[in-house]
Every structure is written in structure tokens, then in C-alpha cells.
């Protein structure tokens, strides 16, 4: 992965903060050459061809026009269609002579313009540097001394913190965010132990120390609304916990906010492994929160793929700890897609579908009873972020295993020979939204299905076959007579290996299947 760093000040020390990341190849543009490097197609930056560009402009040293800045970025991105641009917003300047709000409003105006620009442009993400400065403090992150010695604005700590934040944004853009938050209950969601202290003696209230836990629940609820799946995992008696959820006046989280409850006396690692299996998600998509050091250590040993952050010793730090050590690193969000908001409801529906699977003996009858409706359409702008997300997150039914960023999808969409099939799913339990997509390359009479992906939520309902049939009949209408399907085996897509064979394609080689006389 290639990252280029552009700035109007000297950012060279940032290089050493990424030293441990061997997968990252870096290019630092000489400071203040950023604009020339963006516009000159023969520049070192263009030759480097980065996957990601990070741009930090120090507002105090910058006296350009915001329109010129954005035009330069746009020009570069039109040229480098698969590059993602990360721009740090302008920071406030606390060392100006005039203490009036005009300076701040100027910075606000610049940042507002930049924000709007990023919303219109899939390739641009804003890194909120001001949030970081508010937290760590300007005096800690900047050091005048090195500015006068070597045009360096940030301090050692400033570079470390910034490198960390860039890593979070890169993870987010690559779809490496976590999906499930597994929560202990006693001394985590409330203070005290339910089974020993009793419901009425727990710390959970509007006032006093109990407010810490009320606030914590509020934050968890927000995270759930962002699409994170909640699971409880606690050594307790389930009926008592249910009663607590039902009757305690300050329980903000409801029993139904959790996609699964693992309230029993089994080992937590066994419970969590089971959760992964039930939800058909990897262990590496989970974060485990528990106040008990023993439980955390045990889990780290038995299930090292699960992220197990330390828990604060001082409980008053619980909420800020949660935001900075859990939410920002593991659940960063570029933008919310409609699907994210619906995610918990969808997973719940799936669980009730599973129950139906158990009750209904005949599989065909079961499928018919679901009343599945697929709605297939062409790619529209508002699909792009969801389609990119789908390629990032789909493992089991990702026929080529290839992942795309939003920028790459946009680039392909503008290619006349590429056709996208976007698949929307609905059944009697409700809408699932966009669950599949196929990328087809057309050359005269021949079409190549470069990739076909289907969210694991809908697997096992013949949806993949229906989807393919639809694609084939659509291609037939386009007078295509030969269709090739690509399958590249990855560690996780083995289950889809025979997909083309089952649908009447014949293998040409290990990765390519052919359907003739369409």
C-alpha cells in the first residue's frame, strides 16, 4: 500500500512513526511543493502513484485560496481515479495577537467548504485534526522551536498522534472496521454485581457515580444506531438479567438492542466463538469489553483474533476511554450508509428466518414461503459507497476475492464497457437493501463476469442462482452470446467454488468458466 504525504510545512518526522508498518510504502513531497506536485503530471508524486494521499496544510502558514486548493485536489483525482485523498481539516490558531472570533470563523469557513467538497467526492475523506487537538491540547501537539529550526510544526507527540489517526482512517477506508461489540454486564454496564448486590443496589442512576454507567449505556446505544451489533456476555442467571433490563428505571439499553445474549456460566471464549458462528462473522470482527482483568487475559490467550482492549482502572474515565480507545480505533465511520442503520433489525430478521428453517421441513417450501423478491438495477451514484462496502466486507461469496474502494468503483462506473448489476433483496420479513452486485465487462458479443458478490446474510436461499439467471437474461437482451465467469479461490470463498458449474457453465481453466450459446 502506498501513502503520499503532502504539506506546506515539514512533515518528514511522520515517516518514522510508520516505521513498524512494513506494508506501507511512503512518499514525502518536499514541503510547499504540494500544489505543483498535484498538478504536474510528470512530478514524483504522479510517478509514485499512491493509493492514498494525506494532505495537511497549516492554516497559519497558508495564504492561498480554498477554491485553488480544492481545484488542485480535484484535478489530481480526475487523473488518479483510484486514489483516495485524506485531508486534515485546518486547525485553529491559538497564538494570534487579535483575540476575536474572526480568525476562528475564517477557519470554520475553510473547513465547511472542505467538508462539502468531501461529501460530493467519493475519493475524499476529511481527517478531523481539530478534534484531536481539542483532546490532546495544542501545546502538546505543536512545538515552535522546531518550526524555527527546520520548518516543523508538530511535536514528537503531535506526529505520533497524527500517525495513529491516519492509520484509523486508512483502516476505515479499507473496510477493516469491527462489526460486533461484546459486552460484559456486572461492573461494565452497571456498577456492582447483580447476583450479589441485587437490582436495587446497583450503581446506575441519573445522579452521582451511577451516572457514569447511564452515560456509558447512552454511548453504546449510539454505537448500535451506527450499525454496530451488540452482544452481551456475562456470568449471571438469565432470568435475573432479563428482569433487570425490564424493570430497572435507568436501563437505557433494552433487551432487544442486543442481537444475542450469552448469559450463562460457560467460558466466555466458548460463548464468543459460538456468537461468531451464529452470526457467520469472523472472530476478527469482534471487540470484547470486560472490567475483569482475568477474563480479558483468558480471552486474549484463547481467542487472540478478538480485540480485547484494557478497561480503565478509574471508572470515571469509562466514557472518554470508550470513545478514544474503542470507538475511534475499532469503529470509525466515514459516512453512514442506510444499510448500516438497518443492520441490527436485519440480523434479527435473519435469526427468525433461521427458526423458520427449523420448523419447515421442506426446503423448497421454505424458500417459497419466504416470498423472495430481487430487484436488480444499474449502478447509481448513491449505490457507490454501499457497493464498495460490500466488496470490502464480503468474504464467503466473493467470487474473485477482489476488493474495491469507492474511488475504484467510481472509476469503473465511468467506463462504458463495464456494467454493474445491483441486487436488492426483499422477502416477507422485510427489506434487506443492497445485498449483491456483479461487475461485468462487455466486449462486443462477449461478456465477462469479473466479479459477483453476495452478502452472507442471504446465502443459502438460492439468491445467488436467481441473481445469475437475471444477469444472463439481461445480457441476452443485449445480444450477448458468450458469457465467461471468473472464480479465484481465496481462503474464505471455497463454498462458492462450484457456483458456475451448477449453473451450466463449463470450466475453461482453473479461474474461468464459459457459458456458450446464450
Amino acid at each position, binding site marked *: 500500500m502506498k501513502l503520499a504525504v503532502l504539506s506546506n510545512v515539514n512533515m518528514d*518526522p511522520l515517516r518514522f512513526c510508520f516505521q513498524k508498518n512494513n506494508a506501507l510504502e511512503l512518499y514525502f513531497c518536499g514541503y510547499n511543493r504540494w500544489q505543483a506536485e498535484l498538478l504536474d503530471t510528470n512530478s514524483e508524486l504522479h510517478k509514485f502513484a499512491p493509493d492514498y494521499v494525506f494532505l495537511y496544510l497549516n492554516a497559519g502558514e497558508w495564504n492561498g485560496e480554498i477554491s485553488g486548493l480544492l481545484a488542485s485536489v480535484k484535478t489530481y483525482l480526475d487523473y488518479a481515479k483510484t486514489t483516495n485523498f485524506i485531508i486534515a481539516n485546518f486547525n485553529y490558531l491559538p497564538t494570534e495577537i487579535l483575540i476575536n472570533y474572526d480568525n476562528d470563523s475564517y477557519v470554520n469557513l475553510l473547513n465547511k467548504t472542505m467538508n462539502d467538497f468531501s461529501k460530493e467526492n467519493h475519493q475524499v475523506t476529511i481527517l478531523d485534526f481539530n478534534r484531536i487537538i481539542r483532546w490532546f491540547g495544542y501545546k502538546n501537539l505543536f512545538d515552535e522551536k*522546531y518550526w524555527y*529550526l527546520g520548518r516543523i510544526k508538530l511535536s514528537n507527540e503531535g506526529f505520533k498522534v497524527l500517525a495513529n489517526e491516519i492509520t484509523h482512517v486508512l483502516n476505515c477506508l479499507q473496510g477493516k472496521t469491527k462489526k460486533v461489540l461484546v459486552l460484559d454486564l456486572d461492573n461494565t454496564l452497571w456498577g456492582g454485581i447483580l447476583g450479589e448486590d441485587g437490582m436495587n443496589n446497583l450503581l446506575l442512576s441519573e445522579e452521582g457515580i451511577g451516572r457514569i454507567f447511564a452515560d456509558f449505556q447512552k454511548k453504546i446505544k449510539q454505537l448500535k444506531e451506527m450499525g454496530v451489533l451488540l452482544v452481551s456476555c456475562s456470568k449471571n442467571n438469565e432470568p435475573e438479567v432479563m428482569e433487570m433490563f425490564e424493570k430497572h428505571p435507568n436501563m437505557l439499553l433494552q433487551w432487544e438492542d442486543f442481537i444475542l445474549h450469552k448469559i450463562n456460566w460457560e467460558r466466555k471464549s466458548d460463548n464468543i466463538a459460538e456468537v461468531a458462528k451464529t452470526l457467520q462473522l469472523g472472530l476478527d470482527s469482534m471487540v470484547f469489553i470486560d472490567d475483569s482483568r482475568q477474563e480479558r487475559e483468558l480471552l486474549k490467550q484463547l481467542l487472540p483474533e478478538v480485540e480485547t482492549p484494557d478497561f480503565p482502572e478509574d471508572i470515571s474515565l469509562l466514557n472518554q476511554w470508550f470513545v478514544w480507545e474503542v470507538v475511534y480505533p475499532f469503529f470509525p465511520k466515514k459516512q453512514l450508509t442506510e444499510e448500516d442503520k438497518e443492520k441490527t433489525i436485519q440480523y434479527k430478521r435473519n435469526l427468525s428466518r433461521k427458526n423458520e428453517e427449523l420448523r419447515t421441513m421442506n426446503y423448497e417450501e421454505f424458500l417459497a414461503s419466504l416470498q423472495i423478491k430481487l430487484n436488480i438495477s444499474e449502478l447509481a451514484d448513491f449505490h457507490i459507497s454501499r457497493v464498495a462496502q460490500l466488496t470490502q466486507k464480503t468474504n464467503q461469496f466473493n467470487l474473485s476475492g477482489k476488493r474495491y474502494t469507492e474511488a475504484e468503483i467510481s472509476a469503473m462506473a465511468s467506463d462504458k464497457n463495464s456494467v454493474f448489476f445491483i441486487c436488492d433483496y426483499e422477502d416477507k420479513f422485510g427489506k434487506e437493501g443492497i445485498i449483491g452486485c456483479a461487475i461485468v465487462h462487455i466486449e462486443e458479443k462477449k461478456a465477462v463476469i469479473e466479479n459477483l458478490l453476495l452478502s452472507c446474510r442471504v446465502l443459502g436461499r438460492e439468491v445467488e442462482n436467481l441473481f445469475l439467471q437475471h444477469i444472463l437474461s439481461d445480457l441476452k437482451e443485449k445480444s450477448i452470446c458468450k458469457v465467461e465467469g471468473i472464480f479465484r479461490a481465496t481462503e474464505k470463498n471455497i463454498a462458492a467454488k462450484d457456483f458456475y458449474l451448477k449453473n451450466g457453465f463449463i470450466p475453461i481453466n482453473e479461474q474461468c468458466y464459459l457459458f456458450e450459446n446464450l
Partner: protein
Amino acid sequence: MNSAIYLKTFNMEIEKRLKKLFSETFNVAEETIAPNTRPSNLPEWDSLGHLRLFMNIESELRISFQINEIKELTSFEMIMKMVKEKIVH
């Protein structure tokens, strides 16, 4: 512990930590760092490296140099002497 032994331990500890910082900053083996190591005999010690070195010493040892000191301290020995003074005071 008598004060002579204490001073010796202190000096050795500072030298050890500084050597480690030099080696990390310039990405060279600790053994290559000697009292007379200076920009003219260590190619990795360029002007940017000089600034990174002081940034690292300041944040690791929690001391602060004045801007003139950073310009003037140009050998391992000189830096070590100043670091000791700053830690003692």
C-alpha cells in the same frame, strides 16, 4: 550507596539511554556511537536527523533544550554532558 558509586551508575545509565536514542533515531547499531560521533563522521546524522534526535531526547527524557543549544550541541559527548546537567538541575 556512597555518592561516588551513585554518580558512576547515573553516568552509565545516561550514556546507555542516549546511545539507544541515537541508534533508534539514525537507525544504526549502538556500537557505532562513540563520544566523538558527530555529523561529519556519521552520514545518517544530517540536518533533519539532528532535529529528530533532539525531539526524541526531549520527549523520552522529559527535558527541554533551548533553541541555541540545539544548534550548538553537535557531538555525542557534548549532548551527553548537557543532558546530565539538565537532569541534575
